[in-house]
């Protein structure tokens, strides 16, 4: 039985999203910025609600995706700025800043959602599906949009490969070599915002961070060098995206986000046990060599 066109498009969209998340996530993980994606994801919620309200005010179609994604991107960026401002006080560590932005913005989103319920035109947008993801609800046009954003992210990563790699491995040396590390960091944060926004509908904002963390973490245990890690991370991400979408098609009550994350968890678990670059494998190899 050949899946319907719509199903194929949804699978493709989720796969592309996973590919982008794995690619951007690889650099984010190496730069120690992976968890910022959690705050960005949660910060997107008020933007989605505001986008729905704006769309209703402008008379646009309720379930139209672009205003929602635009709102999400704007508040996601605002969240990034807020985290940086908190860090500049010198009294709030990065993890506390992430937690503050994550929870406060999410709370604002929840409050706004309850207001949106009261506006009939906006309420039809069915916004709560952005929290945990529902790939089954993706329309072909939505999947194309998410896929396009994803491809854009991958292209940007490839274009910025050398400065990104330099910044990830030795920021000080990179600076000395003339790489504008501050600008690269901002670019990385911007890419994280784009990936989170693209993933809202499929994976949901609460769990999109897992798609950014788990594939690169698994890839690291198989590849010792960056190009290999990047390629594997992208592949693993795509696999997780596809698995999640497939699970969502077979079992509509399970939020897609959960399916994607659990696929990633299995991948990471297997990698920790069997990956040749994992500490266990390296220890085994060292033991073997010392015996020989």
């Amino acid at each position, binding site marked *: 039985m050949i899946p319907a066109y719509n199903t194929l498009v949804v699978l493709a969209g989720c796969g592309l999203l996973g590919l982008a998340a794995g690619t951007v996530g690889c650099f984010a993980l190496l730069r120690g910025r992976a*968890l910022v994606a959690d705050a960005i994801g949660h910060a997107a919620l008020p933007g989605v609600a505001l986008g729905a309200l704006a769309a209703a005010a402008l008379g646009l179609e309720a379930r139209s995706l672009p205003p929602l994604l635009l709102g999400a991107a704007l508040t996601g960026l605002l969240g990034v700025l807020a985290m940086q401002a908190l860090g500049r006080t010198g009294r709030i560590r990065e993890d506390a800043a992430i937690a*503050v932005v994550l929870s406060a913005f999410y709370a604002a989103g929840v409050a706004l959602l309850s207001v949106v319920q009261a506006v009939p035109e906006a309420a039809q947008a069915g916004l709560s599906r952005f929290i945990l993801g529902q790939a089954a609800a993706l329309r072909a046009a939505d999947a194309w949009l998410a896929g396009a954003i994803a491809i854009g992210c991958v292209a940007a990563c490839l274009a910025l490969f050398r400065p990104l790699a330099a910044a990830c491995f030795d920021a000080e040396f990179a600076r000395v070599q003339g790489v504008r590390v501050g600008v690269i960091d901002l670019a990385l944060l911007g890419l994280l915002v784009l990936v989170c926004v693209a993933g809202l509908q499929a994976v949901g904002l609460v769990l999109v961070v897992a798609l950014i963390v788990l594939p690169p973490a698994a890839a690291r245990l198989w590849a010792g060098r960056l190009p290999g890690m990047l390629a594997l991370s992208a592949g693993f991400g795509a696999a997780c995206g596809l698995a999640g979408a497939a699970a969502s098609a077979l079992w509509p009550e399970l939020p897609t986000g959960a399916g994607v994350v659990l696929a990633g968890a299995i991948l990471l678990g297997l990698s920790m046990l069997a990956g040749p670059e994992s500490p266990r494998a390296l220890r085994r190899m060292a033991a073997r060599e010392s015996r020989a």
Partner: protein
Amino acid sequence: MIDAATFLQLDLPPLLAALLAGATCGLLGSLLVLRRESLVADALSHAVLPGIVLGFALTGLRAGLPMLLGALAAALLAVAGIGLVRRWARLESGAATGAVFTVFFAAGLLGLELSGARTVDLDLDCVLFGQLETLVWPQATGWASLADPAALAALPRQLGLLAAVGVVSAVAVAACWRPLKLLCFDAGYAAVLGLPVRALETGLALLVAAAAVAAFESVGSILVVALLVCPAAALRLLTDRFGTQVLGGAALGAGLAALGYALAGPLPAALGSGIAVNAAGMIGTLGGVAVALAALLGRHRAAAAAG
């Protein structure tokens, strides 16, 4: 003017729940912020979900104790899991924590589906949005009900758990005040002095998990993080003194909770508006506002002191 019976039936339970959650989380959260462990608040609030679901699924009851025990077990497993992932996957602390707690949360969501809990009692909306507004006390008839044991016994179950966790936390912090102060500011010295550092750390983590469970039924899983982190962060921006930080965090948490609840429901109603804003969302938003104000105030004072 609102009459006593309506206030007691509809407003008192959510207000009390919010106050208790805010005070307890503000207290414990301050300790986490001083220990630079705010991420633990995020992690534990997400990680307890599978434990809560399991406790519910195994007993079939939405009672406090099985869920609390399940949550504590999940919390301990999560902490162990984070250590495991750090060692076996060479991940730094933040990424390992994020990996583990999202997986636990997803497992909890899966459990919600499998156990059918979703269709019965423990539902997803409660986890994500809280349900302060659903806490009611139908047995209240007037101010006299506050002294009536039979009526008091009919208060929502969630209040009992919140009160218990709140009292235990307050007593524990008071009893361990000096050791905690040392632990927050110089853990190495504390260990040298022979203080049971591991026990204190584990105790704090368990209390945070318990608070997360107790509060989750009123404000939801993710908003627990707001209560644990925002009042504490606001105080951190304003003071360097342990006592002010810890007690101020508790007070601010309670205050924001009360104000948030009032602004969400009663105030719009009093103004004649039909819109009721989600109370938990309003409380969390106020938490963020408090941090922002504290950041501005702190900068002002620093500039004034320097200038």
